[in-house]
């Protein structure tokens, strides 16, 4: 009986739920969808660059992954290309094939497919519950670390250091400082400085569209330089023709070679799947708490999994929910998946119209967007409250440090471990309130008594075995057999020494 109910429940998650149609405020949804499309185009191009694939792929990701996630999900969350997922994809495939080569693209496709499969497996195992344990401190730590990564990876493009591929960002600083006269391209610096400067100046006034305006300013500046001084003098790198196919359907090739590749990147597959879901679910959790209480987290997991699994069939790569684009959509009044659906179609239209002009978009302007997105991910408003408690501050700092200095997948692992460890440390905190009534000592225990937390109590009880103590366990929600056996052992010791120990369970 329970099994059938569970299966029926899962079926409900599989079938698109279109009940939102009844309560939809069409105009606001459409407006926010259009704004989302405008916002996603520079980001899609930038994130495709991060993932090491042609810019078209980023646009396809915004269209198809976004559309599927919205259609199958039940929330105003905006899906599509995502910074952390893109960084991880590039870091995973790069050791196996040259960036952007045909083999690289095939590996990206099978990797995305595998990520989707793992996410569907997580859905089947009801994994959405697990992501509740991802602490906000860890999420903020990952976001901050990714922000640092983005700013550092923007450094190559903004300074025009393109042929250098150094591992650590301080190396890039070193190269830029010590050999600036031969490596730094002044035209690229001017273009990206205009982009970033414009973005920072406009961020306060137009918090929704500043990236678009910054790209516009940087693009005009870069194009002006390019055509005034010529491509040979400026050596400015341009985006090139973006040729969107109307129906980019394909079947990804899976040969023994691809299996071999997948076998070697299993940890990364899980890291990407978990990171993608973690971001989507943190967004969904937040929306559920604030705006749309009938969001089903399992349904969102299913939608993400299917969207990512389908992504290689639409010539694109895996994505996830986007923090910044969802925030803008919700702020502009999106309450249902309709805004995401509108955004997907609007991207096609916009990219088609803008296509010829995008050809001359200078890459330093794109790098400027990267830096701006990175700066947007480091939020003082989110970080400051974390420093009020030692645990949160520690989780945040450890996570940020490992994401920025080790690598992203290590950082995710560290984030999970750090959240759990500090949760355990907090949970093992047992408070003893001691009051003495004549010869008898009353000890009121507050907190969980288990193998990790019983030490403090045992140490106190063992100081004087001749005492007469009563434990008040009414505020102990959980007491494991180990703790009971320790207390029984102490009672035996006391009886031998002439003392007494009793406890009253709550």
């Amino acid at each position, binding site marked *: 009986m329970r099994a059938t109910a569970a299966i029926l429940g899962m079926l409900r998650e599989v079938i698109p739920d279109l009940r939102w149609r009844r309560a939809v405020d069409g105009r606001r949804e459409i407006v926010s969808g259009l704004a989302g499309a405008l916002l996603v185009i520079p980001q899609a191009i930038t994130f495709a660059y991060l993932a090491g694939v042609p810019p078209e792929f980023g646009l396809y990701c915004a269209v198809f992954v976004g559309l599927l996630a919205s259609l199958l999900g039940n929330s105003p969350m905006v899906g599509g290309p995502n910074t952390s997922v893109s960084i991880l994809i590039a870091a995973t495939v790069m050791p196996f094939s040259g960036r952007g080569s*045909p*083999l690289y693209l095939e590996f990206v496709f099978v990797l995305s497919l595998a990520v989707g499969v793992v996410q569907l497996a997580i859905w089947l195992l009801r994994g959405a519950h697990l992501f509740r344990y991802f602490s906000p401190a860890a999420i903020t730590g990952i976001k901050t670390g990714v922000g640092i990564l983005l700013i550092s990876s923007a450094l190559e493009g903004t300074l025009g250091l393109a042929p250098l591929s150094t591992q650590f960002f301080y190396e890039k600083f070193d190269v830029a400082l010590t050999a600036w006269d031969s490596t730094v391209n002044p035209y690229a610096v001017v273009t990206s400085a205009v982009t970033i400067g414009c973005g920072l100046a406009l961020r306060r006034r137009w918090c929704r569209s500043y990236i678009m305006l910054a790209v516009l300013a940087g693009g005009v500046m870069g194009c002006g330089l390019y*055509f005034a001084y010529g491509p040979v003098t400026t050596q400015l790198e341009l985006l*090139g023709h973006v040729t969107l196919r109307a129906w980019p359907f394909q079947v990804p090739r899976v040969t023994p070679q691809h299996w071999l590749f997948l076998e*070697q990147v299993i940890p990364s597959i899980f890291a990407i799947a978990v990171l993608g879901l973690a971001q989507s679910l943190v967004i969904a959790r937040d929306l559920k708490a604030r705006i749309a209480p009938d969001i089903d987290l399992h349904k969102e997991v299913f939608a993400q999994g299917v969207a990512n699994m389908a992504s290689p069939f639409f010539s694109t790569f895996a994505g996830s929910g986007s923090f910044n684009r969802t925030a803008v959509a919700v702020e502009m009044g999106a309450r249902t998946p309709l805004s995401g659906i509108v955004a997907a179609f609007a991207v096609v239209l916009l990219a088609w119209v803008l296509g010829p002009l995008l050809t*001359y978009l200078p890459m330093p302007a794109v790098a400027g967007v990267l830096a701006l997105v990175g700066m947007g991910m480091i939020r003082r408003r989110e970080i400051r409250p974390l420093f009020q408690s030692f645990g949160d501050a520690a989780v945040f700092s450890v996570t940020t440090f490992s994401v920025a200095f080790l690598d992203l997948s290590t950082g995710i692992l560290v984030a999970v471990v750090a959240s759990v460890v500090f949760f355990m440390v907090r949970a093992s905190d047992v408070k003893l309130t001691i009051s003495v009534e004549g010869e008898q000592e009353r000890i009121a225990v507050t907190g969980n008594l288990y193998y990790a937390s019983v030490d403090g109590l045992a140490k106190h009880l063992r100081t004087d075995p001749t005492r007469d103590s009563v434990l008040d366990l009414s505020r102990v929600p959980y007491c494991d057999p180990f703790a009971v056996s320790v207390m029984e052992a102490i009672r035996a010791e006391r009886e031998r020494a002439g003392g007494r120990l009793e406890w009253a369970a709550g």
Partner: protein
Amino acid sequence: MTRNWWCAMALAAFSFSAMAAGARPTIEELKARPVLDDYESNIVYGYNIVMETQRYAPRYVGSRLNCTNCHLKGGTQPEGFPLNVEGVYPRWRAKNGVRNGLGLRIRDCFLYSLNGVMPPEESPEVQAVAAYIHYLSEGEVIGRPPDRWGVPTLPETGSDPNPARGSVVYKQKCAACHGADGQGTAAAPPVWGPGSYNAGAGMNNVQRVAGFIWANMPLGSERSLTHQEALDVAAFLHIQLRPFDPRTTNLWKLVERIAQAVSSFFGAGKP
């Protein structure tokens, strides 16, 4: 672990046996293989780019040309700008006044001959074409130009190249494939106008084009033109309008580029 090891051993054995055979695999053989490593897949990709630039490297191309239009038969035709030239790079070229590696040489072709935007050195397209050139250059001697590379230099004919005579020859011998207006047909590429190479291209040189035409054109009856006829046709092509040389700088060119972009959007120029 063991499975990976066995696969690696099998691959290694396979490639060693291929090496021992000594024969360079043809592109068709490479395409038929179930498993390609990064270098081999780049060779195939590079070959595809050279043969169908419009389809495989549209990102950096502004004209309607493919590499193989000048580098005949995918760069395997002697005296038709063959591509087995890895051994001569790096070399200094007067064109840009710096020492050119193979990468910069390829990027220059995108900028001038394909009238596009210059791809970055590490772009997959440049890497792939470099791999293909590397593959074609197998057996050549490093530092020595390959036999019959580039195009033949025509001897002095005693008469200046004459575009007026060239236009007559063009109508008789070339217009059938290249079109009376030079805009190309399904059989042959455009030789002037917005879809062709720009004024900075190596082909915009009377002597070189004359050599190319004499040795390789008209297709099917090569070397049927006299030296003088080839020179005249080359002069005729040279005076036609074509996209500007990107080395000349002028903001007006920006307007031209935008107009080109708009017209291509409405389907007039590049498809």
